[in-house]
């Protein structure tokens, strides 16, 4: 099966091409089903490849490179369009195609009736293709191809409803912010090529041991800059909350489950380099991760948009993953990535279902009491909530616990930040659940305000949307079994990934920390209930949190103010100084000609005088300077 690894991205690509050509003819919903089928098929192939790889020995799992053709080859630079099928990439592929297929299916229901239905699936398939390229690429450039591809699809999908200015702006913002990160990615590539002479992961990781510390640090940190862009870390996270302008399946697939984890994936992929880098490199990553996690969790406390809460939550959880990466616990990062993909996709899809149900309302203050009206959505959402809150035995508990443990090994301060973040996470998720599903139904007023017509009663979603919710709920609940920390043999993921990312040895006792974490979660949930359900405590939702500490506004103000002014200055200088010099030269000629013209007075005596002066000058030269001196 390994030989057909190329089929994994090829199937969505085929889907893209078919929909490109015949999408309109297929129409709603056939195009959607077709797209789903392609990603589903890709999942099947992935499973096949996965099983094939499983059957091989651990040593033979890491160097399975399948080359399609030579892509960019100049001199010493050999870049093949090749796939690296190893435990890490296949893990990614499994959940990318798996969750991807579910979300495709979900989208068939969600996007039903949209005039650009087929185009949505066109982009979605293209995204799946790009994401798989990113994951499977055997060298940094193929990854970069996918990296930019997912960015482009993200752009296209965020601004899918481009008639809305905010959507268009958000799409652009996402792309450009990502590009800032891409700059880092490119620099990492350049450094790698310069130092190693190759962009192949196998070569780079093999040569990692021989790299100088400085080079390794440079590669690692530049790659991290790229990761920050893609995975929405401080200070580049800005685009992700805005990206919620896209249709909800997009948010679920791209901005929660898959694309945003690419940064984490990249860091794990080049973990050998990171391991030999200066010690401050991982520390920087860990600090940025922890800071982001905490910061975003704070912001999530005060959001009222159902998707914004999840968006900040995603930022926060990604911060967790980087905390893990920075702490050297790559397996934990991947583990959390997988579980996060399950529960966050679930939460987003649930949120989408809610939005769908309440007719495109996203403000939680205009929801409430939906648990009866949307039972499936409610039930699955609860699973997601408990998973993200870190309540055992839901999947989130296991993965988060792993990370906290690793953080403790790195530094107790980081652990403390992580713990507080976990508490906050539990709190704001509980707040969300209560605001959406409990309390009084506030959506009546909303609809009256809108002057709605007919029966606007919220309703449960169709099966295409419900089925993915249920599957994901199961995964979110049970996802933890892939890496249970009871004994070495139950740490299946760690074993599986060990040939690629190594193993993170920890001697710290696990149980006390697990208990502390659970306690934190429960405290968060409890406080939230006290505030929002029982209304015992007055909610504190400072504006500054809702405003994300004003960071976004400050950046916008900078861009619109000094940034734009400096751009204007360049444009001005171009027109007036550089082109001005050119025009000035022209004018100089014109003006001196105008002056000279006056001498050409038409009077013959003037001409004779000029001639006479010429004569005297010539004579003076010849007689005085050449003859006498």
């Amino acid at each position, binding site marked *: 099966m390994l030989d057909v690894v190329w089929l994994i991205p090829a199937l969505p690509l085929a889907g893209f091409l078919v929909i490109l050509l015949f999408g309109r003819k297929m129409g709603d919903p056939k195009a959607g089903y077709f797209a789903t089928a392609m990603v589903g098929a890709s999942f099947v192939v992935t499973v096949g490849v996965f099983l094939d790889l499983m059957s091989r020995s651990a040593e033979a799992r890491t160097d399975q490179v399948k080359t399609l053709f030579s892509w960019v080859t100049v001199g010493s630079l050999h870049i093949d369009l090749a796939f690296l099928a190893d435990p890490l990439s296949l893990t990614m592929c499994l959940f990318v195609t798996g969750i991807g297929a579910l979300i495709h299916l979900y989208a068939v229901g969600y996007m039903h009736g949209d005039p650009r239905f087929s185009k949505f699936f066109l982009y979605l398939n293209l995204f799946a293709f790009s994401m798989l390229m990113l994951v499977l690429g055997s060298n940094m450039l193929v990854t970069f191809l996918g990296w930019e591809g997912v960015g482009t699809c993200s752009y296209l999908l965020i601004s899918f409803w481009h008639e809305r200015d905010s959507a268009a702006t958000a799409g652009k913002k996402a792309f450009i912010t990502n590009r800032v990160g891409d700059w880092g990615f490119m620099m990492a590539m350049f450094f790698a090529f310069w130092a190693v002479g190759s962009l192949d992961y196998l070569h780079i990781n093999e040569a990692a041991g021989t790299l100088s510390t400085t080079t390794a640090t440079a590669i690692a940190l530049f790659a991290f800059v790229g990761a920050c862009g893609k995975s929405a870390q401080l200070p580049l996270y800005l685009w992700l909350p805005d990206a919620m302008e896209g249709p909800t399946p997009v948010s679920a697939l791209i901005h929660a489950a898959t694309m945003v984890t690419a940064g984490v994936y990249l860091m794990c992929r080049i973990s050998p380099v990171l391991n030999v880098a200066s010690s401050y490199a991982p520390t920087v990553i860990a600090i940025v991760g922890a800071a982001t996690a905490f910061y975003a969790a704070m912001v999530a406390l005060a959001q009222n948009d159902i998707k914004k809460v999840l968006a900040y939550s995603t930022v926060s959880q990604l911060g967790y993953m980087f905390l893990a990466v920075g702490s050297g616990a790559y397996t934990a990062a991947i583990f959390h990535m997988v579980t996060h993909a399950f529960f966050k996709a679930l939460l987003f899809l649930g949120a989408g279902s809610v939005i769908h149900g309440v007719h495109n309302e996203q403000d939680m203050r205009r929801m409430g009491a939906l648990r009866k009206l949307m039972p499936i959505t409610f039930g699955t959402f609860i699973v997601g909530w408990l998973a993200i809150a870190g309540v055992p035995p839901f999947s989130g508990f296991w993965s988060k616990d792993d990370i906290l443990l690793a953080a403790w090994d790195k530094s107790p301060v980081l652990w403390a930040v992580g713990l507080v973040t976990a508490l906050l996470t539990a709190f704001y998720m509980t707040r969300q659940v209560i605001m959406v599903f409990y309390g009084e139904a506030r959506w009546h007023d909303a609809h009256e305000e809108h002057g709605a017509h007919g029966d606007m009663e919220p309703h449960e979603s169709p099966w295409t949307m419900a089925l993915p919710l249920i599957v994901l709920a199961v995964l979110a609940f049970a996802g933890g079994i892939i890496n249970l920390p009871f004994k070495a043999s139950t740490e299946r993921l760690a074993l599986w990934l060990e040939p690629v990312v190594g193993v993170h040895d920890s001697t710290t006792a696990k149980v006390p920390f697990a208990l502390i974490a659970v306690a934190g979660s429960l405290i968060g949930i409890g406080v939230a209930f006290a505030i929002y359900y029982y209304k015992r405590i007055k909610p504190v939702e400072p504006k500054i949190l809702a405003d994300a500490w004003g960071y976004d506004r400050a950046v916008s103000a900078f861009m619109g103010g000094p940034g734009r002014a400096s751009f204007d200055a360049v444009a001005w200088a171009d027109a007036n100084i550089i082109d001005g010099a050119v025009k000035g030269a022209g004018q100089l000629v014109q003006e001196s000609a105008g002056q000279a013209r006056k001498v050409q007075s038409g*009077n013959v005596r*003037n001409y004779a*005088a000029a001639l006479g*002066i010429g004569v005297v000058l010539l*004579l003076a030269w010849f007689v*005085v300077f050449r003859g*006498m001196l």
Partner: protein
Amino acid sequence: MELFVFVVAGAMVLGGAVGVILSKHPVHAALSLILTLFGVAVLFVAQEANFLAAVQVIVYAGAIVVLFLFVIMLLGVDNSENLRIEPFKVQRPIAAVVGAGLFGLISAAAIVARGAKTGLQGSGLEVTGPDGSKLHDGNIKALARDLFSDHVLAFELTSVLLVIAVVGTVLLARKPRKGEQTVDTGAGALG
């Protein structure tokens, strides 16, 4: 003796020249010119160019100046010119500088180079008799000899020049035929 001639003739030459440029009336200018031409003729004699002196008087004073006077009379352009007015302020200072410069520089060159010798041997100003005696028409003969040997081409070319002068005057003097309109609107309708 030669100095005396030089001074007197020089005074004539320069006086006449100054007269030309300072007389308000063109007729006076023409008369002053005659004075200069005579002075030059005298100097020719002093320089052993007797024949040229005669030609100078006949051609210049006799023909050219008469032609000038003729045109002045013919056209009646004998109104005097007010020399006190100069529309171009810089014109006269420039004229002064140019005049002084020319004079000064060429004189300087003449003075500096006064001792210079050339490697060429002159052919002599006069033809002598077979016995080396001086002939009364030696200068004329020498001129004639030179004119028809070394300078024969130049001499022939003067004929072309004269033909041009003839054709030119014919062309210029031809009056516009009847009915022909002159185009004087200098505005250049399409300019």
